[in-house]
């Protein structure tokens, strides 16, 4: 039997009352490399953000390792999309990666030697040792992405959520990082990755979540990656759903009754 890493029930998320995730319902087993795939604006980033509780959801609930996020925070790591921060901020690569070792408990103290060693090891793992003292604005886009991955590795979590970690990363580094992630998988960790490239997705991941506002399919890559499913996700069949979304927004209509919010 395999452990369940992520469990999502009836998740609905709206921006400005417009639903961008509609009644999502799936669970993901632990110990896999899992891809989240879908066209632009299909709600992949929104899905990760609502799992991390960075944005409120209108309904539904989420369990990680069968517990609410609050209970398992220290086992979870999140890599945001690169554009989410100001890369002109005056800090070095090393300083950013060390942030991965920050905890509620050591906020007012200096980091321990062990924390620092872990951060340096993470920098080495993504091949950025030569750049460790560089200011982060003096990096290429792909290198910045690797800094974020290193920060995440430094957290030593059990479950990783990464939003397009390969965007702008060259083929050689992509290979190296993928090897790293595979070895993490072997060690029993779970990695959930938002990924854009359908070509490579198939070979990267053994599990997959196909998304387009609603869930198309979640399962083993072989079953998800059928032409019918892809057609459904990427083809233009969403016109009715988006019409209804517009209506909901226009009429300020509640998408679900409030009391449905948490676990029954």
């Amino acid at each position, binding site marked *: 039997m395999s452990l369940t890493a992520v469990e999502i029930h009836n998740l609905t998320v709206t921006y400005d009352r417009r639903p961008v995730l509609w009644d999502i319902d799936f669970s993901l087993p632990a110990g896999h490399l899992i891809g989240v795939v879908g066209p632009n604006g299909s709600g992949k980033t929104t899905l990760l*953000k609502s799992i*991390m509780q960075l944005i409120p959801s209108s309904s539904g609930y989420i369990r990680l390792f069968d517990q609410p996020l*609050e209970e398992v*925070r220290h086992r979870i790591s*999140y890599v945001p999309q690169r554009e989410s921060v100001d890369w002109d901020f*005056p*800090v070095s690569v090393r300083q950013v990666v060390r*942030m991965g070792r920050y905890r509620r408990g050591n906020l*007012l103290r200096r980091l321990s030697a062990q924390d620092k060693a872990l951060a340096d090891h993470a920098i080495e793992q993504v091949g950025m040792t030569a750049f460790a003292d560089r200011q982060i604005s003096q990096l290429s886009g792909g290198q910045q992405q690797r800094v974020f991955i290193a920060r995440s590795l430094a*957290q030593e979590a059990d479950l990783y959520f990464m939003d397009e970690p390969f965007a702008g990363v060259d083929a050689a580094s992509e290979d190296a990082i993928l090897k790293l992630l595979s070895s993490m998988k072997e060690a029993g960790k779970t990695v959930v990755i938002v990924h854009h490239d359908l070509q490579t997705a198939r070979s990267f991941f053994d599990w997959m979540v196909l998304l387009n506002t609603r869930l198309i399919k979640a399962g083993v890559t072989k079953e998800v990656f059928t032409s019918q499913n892809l057609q459904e996700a990427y083809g233009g069949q969403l016109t009715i759903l988006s019409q209804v979304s517009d209506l909901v927004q226009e009429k300020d209509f509640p998408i679900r009754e409030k009391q449905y919010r948490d676990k029954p």
Partner: protein
Amino acid sequence: MEFFSFTDPNVRMVTLGSMLLGASAALVGCFTFLRQRALVGDAIAHAVLPGVCIAFLVSGDKNPWVLLIGAVIAGWVSLIAMDFITNRSKLKTDTAIGAVLSVFFGFGILLLTAIQHSGAANQAGLDKFLFGKAASMNQQDIITFSSVACFLLLLIFAFFKAFKLVSFDPDFARVIGLPVRVLEFLLSTITVLAVATGIQAVGVVLMAALLITPAAAARFWTERIQVMMLLATFFGIASGFFGSYVSYVAPSMPTGPWIVMLLSAIALISILLAPRRGLLARTRLQRNNARKMRTENILKTFYALGESTTNWQQGFTTLALQEKRAFQPAKLKRGISHLRRKGLIERNKEGLFQLTPSGFTESQRVVRLHRLWELYLSERMNMAADHVHNTAEAIEHILTPEVEQALLEELGHPIQDPHQSIIPYQSKRK
């Protein structure tokens, strides 16, 4: 000068107090600046005025603690108002900030005028909150505001790591379970406190300058946040010192404008002179690049002129050079004298210009790089032979010896470029 002797205990106190205010405002301002909240800082500064006035009206007294509390409450109300407007309406953030700033400030001026006309006892001096007057602080004021400033310094020291993370990546901070709301509340509170104390020296109208300018200027000099905060603190201390000095020599002058003048000078110097980020450093770099290109092109032209006869020991007139390559005469002249100073070109007996031995080696190097790059473009990037020349013209000047070595290895020490010209390697001049 009497001021600098610091024999007067009052002068000592005022100076020390102003320096502390400047330091704490500058330090707090670093986070305001890094979080790109400069405008919000300005709005808070203007918004504390009605708070100060109401505190005075209610208490009928100029007790600094009471005025401080009034200022902090008003600052907070303005923050809440800005948040409320941006969240609840479709107005853009800057519109909300502008609206809050002008409404609060207008109301403050109204109250201030009313107080001044009411003839209330001991109302005199309240107008110093507009443009600041360091010297008008009495002992109780100084003790009050200095202790607040010290408190701010300690707080930033203690929470440095957390503030850094929240300013850089608040989402990440939230995800790892830091109390981001509390930290953001703290950051806003120290901004309000820094403003409420800083207005003693600069007044509400110009307070944003004391908050933001030191950080903005410091950013030019460094890429490290710790260094930036140290520098900003130093700039803040300098402005506090200067402010109290002005206030002492020219008692009728408000201090705020003078402090802002000093800060602007510091900022201007930083923009101009800072290494790497400064304007001067950038233009110098560009000028050096242009000169390098020009002199290398002259050397290349000498090489090309000699190549037709494979005799590089002859001299040429500037006219001959210009015929080979369209140089601007003035720039060619400057380039040649630069090369002569570096001993790469000399004037021979007939008064013509010719390459020295080291000049010849250098010209070989430039030509070699040009041709190697052309070859690389046409072989490895499949560019047509008639397209590679122009690209190589620019790139040849920036290729380092390491790249040259890599090119040589990659191309297997080739002999000819795509136009069948010989690639010159280091050799004695024939």
